[in-house]
């Protein structure tokens, strides 16, 4: 690669790209600290002059916020509605849905669902990719057959899923949604992993087999470590897909199971409409696991993303 100087216009270009990429994140974090009257203010409030953690309390510790606002009790012992304290400056006894339940259930739910769905997808996708790339399983058509599962909108299969899941008792269960997440992301994991395996010389595995390894062992001990970068990149990609999935989580759950995207859509109040602050706070919280995972695997990620960039 020829040596090129890093010029000032390279820097400006990078800066613009960075602003473009990071602006939504900035806006999200900024909104998460804004009081409600600044959420949709015109002209926009870029950084609040009166930052608040109320949005985070709404999401993570509503009981604290509720306590500040006068608690749950809106009735006295005789069942009469309590008069509110006009001097308190806050709504006494607020009973809004979002203040009676924190988002922790949905955060745990998303962690379980995204992890389970990703593990299932990667295991099945890896085996499918090996079968296709190394043994031409099913001929040339198989990869397209698998991809066809993504060729229609998920909404088209949502209701049939509801019926089937209801019949087998899989509605509102973690395992049911994990199955769905695994199934709908398998085409991606298969195709991505297939491309990484395709780039790996088959001779390496053959040499391992000649040294006495079984097919399974050769793939497990030789192939998988060699495509580690690709595997990590694929895993992260699938995890993000599952982490942000909304439709199936909405239609296949009721009360027991919840996920972050569904919880986010519930932040609505009669007085303030969509609670952009709470939504931004939950979104900010929700990207933390992804940032941590991305940071921990960044070495593999870079390798995985560049793997296969140069064709043999």
């Amino acid at each position, binding site marked *: 690669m020829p040596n090129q100087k890093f010029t000032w216009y390279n820097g400006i270009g990078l800066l613009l790209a960075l602003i473009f990429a990071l602006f939504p994140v900035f806006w999200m974090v900024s909104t998460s600290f804004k009081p*409600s*009257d600044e959420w*949709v*203010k*015109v002209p926009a409030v870029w950084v609040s002059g009166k930052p608040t953690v109320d949005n985070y309390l709404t999401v993570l510790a509503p009981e604290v916020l509720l306590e500040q606002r006068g608690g749950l009790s*809106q*009735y006295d012992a005789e*069942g*009469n*509605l309590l*008069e*509110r*304290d*006009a*001097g*308190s*400056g*806050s*709504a*006494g*006894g*607020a*009973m*809004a*849905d*979002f*203040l*009676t339940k924190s988002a922790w259930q949905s955060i745990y739910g998303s962690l379980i669902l995204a992890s389970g769905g990703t593990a299932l997808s990667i295991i099945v996708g890896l085996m499918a990719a090996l079968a296709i790339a190394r043994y031409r399983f099913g001929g040339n058509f198989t990869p397209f057959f698998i991809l066809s599962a993504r060729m229609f909108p998920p909404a088209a299969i*949502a*209701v049939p899923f*509801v*019926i089937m899941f*209801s019949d087998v008792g899989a*509605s509102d269960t973690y395992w049911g949604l994990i199955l769905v997440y695994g199934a709908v992301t398998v085409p991606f994991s298969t195709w991505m992993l297939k491309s990484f395996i395709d780039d790996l010389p088959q001779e390496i595995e053959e040499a391992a087999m000649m040294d006495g390894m079984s097919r399974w062992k050769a793939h497990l001990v030789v192939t998988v470590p060699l495509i580690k970068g690709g595997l990590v990149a694929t895993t992260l990609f699938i995890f993000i897909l599952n982490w942000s999935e909304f439709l199936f989580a*909405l*239609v296949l759950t*009721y*009360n027991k199971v919840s996920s972050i995207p*569904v919880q986010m*859509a*519930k*932040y*609505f*109040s*009669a*007085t*303030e*409409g*969509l609670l952009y602050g709470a939504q931004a706070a939950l979104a900010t919280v929700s990207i933390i696991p992804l940032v941590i995972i991305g940071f921990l695997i960044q070495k593999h990620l870079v390798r995985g993303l560049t793997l296969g960039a140069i064709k043999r």
Partner: protein
Amino acid sequence: MSVENERKRVLSELYRLWGMHMSKTHHVSRRDLIKGMFGLGLSATAVSMIMKNAPLGVKRAWADGHSAEDRAVKAAKALYGSAKKKTISIMHPSGSGGNMAPFTEEWKALTGFDVELIQVPVTETHQKGMQEAVAKTGRYDLMLPAPLSLPDYAESGLAKPLDDYFAEHNPEIFNGPNRLSYPVSDFGQKYNGKIYGLYCDGDWWLLNYRADVLAAAGDKIDSPRSLADTWGRYDELAAKYTDKSKDFWGALEYRSPFWNKFQWMTRFQSKGTLYFDEDMNSMADSPESISTVEELVALQDYIPVENFNYGFTDNYAQYYKQGRGFMEFGWPSLWRYSADVAGAASVIGKRDATGNPTAMGISKVPGTVVDGNLVRADIMPFAWDFVVSEHSEIPEASYLYAQWLCGPTMSQRSIPNEGGYFDPWRNNHFLEPTELFFNSYPGDFLATSYEAVSDVCPEIILRGGFEYHNAIDVNLSAAYTGQKTAKEAMKDAAKECNKITRRLGKDKQKEAWHNLAKMYSDPMKKAAGVDSWS
């Protein structure tokens, strides 16, 4: 007369009265017995029919002895032992739990039935219901959709007709002093003649305005509880009170997608034309509709540009609540939260020494003079109904919960709660509010709202209602933003509406439309000539 003769006379008289004749042996013959029983049966039937229809009939007399809530509790208690399911699962839109959650324990203590609140995003309520219509899981016993969902829920077999439950348990919605007034009572609960919903919320619009600003300018309201009787006067006020240099706007009307159609509905229909004609052709492209859109576009000079993005709550929170607008149409909650200085940090709902708000005014919506009569078409967007699922294992108990919570007394407790959407709807809410109920809707609100109820008109509560709404909404947005002229936009809207009608079956839609049109207020029916429709 001897005692024996007297006994014979009395017996003879009794037998005669019962259609029998005394035999010589004073025994009743088989023939006499049959005749007597027949007579007795006829008499009993006649008495029963008379009593049933009498103002103080047997059933009514029994009903008067108890409240709607008592009847619901007693019946639910009786059902509890044999109930297949002991928990009533309620699908409700996010943001509405505050009207129900505080009463769950009370209901359980009274009847044994537990209540499970299943919250769904408010924007997905209709879809979740339709999903259940297809899946038939029975997971929901009760649902809380807007009346706009009723036709789709009914046609898909999801909503259970409630006529029998209404007749048996009498929720006091169509009768008695605590009833809901016509026409709201009918068009938001009935579809094609059957009852599918039980109200828990009233949502007709009123016009909120700054009474202090009006007074300061020396202006007066047109008539009692009416700031502007006509749209012409309303437009004049919007122009007069707009002061752009102070960022103060005359009319805080809605111009953003989804919300904007309600402005059209209330102004357009007051001109004596309804959504469709007798033959179910869309009237969106009628001269009245096009002129309405032209008026709405002209009015935009007095509306802040942000309103092209703001929905109800943003519009209220950013402008009206902060004292940056003169008038805003709104749901009852607008008044409630404006008056609630503590809760909403409102700058307009200031209270005087007695605690009464001083700066706000509340008014019926303006109207149009049609054939010498002032016609107001007060739109009721939303409202919420309890709907019993046809797939529920405990439909009656579920219905009874709804009757209990929405009863005349219970509703006075649940409606003022925080964190919910329920607003006043029953007559007693307006005429006999409890002190705390009145404090939630203080000042002249309840009286004005009650006076306006006779002007209330529905959205397009037909099968495919959401599609009709969307067709109008999208084209109105195009007109408001200048992408289409008013005429082009409304011609396109009408074309799309007619297409929806054809797809859903014109004859069936026409029948449902005629049923809906008959549930308009009398002045509107007269202005639109509905009574002459065949």
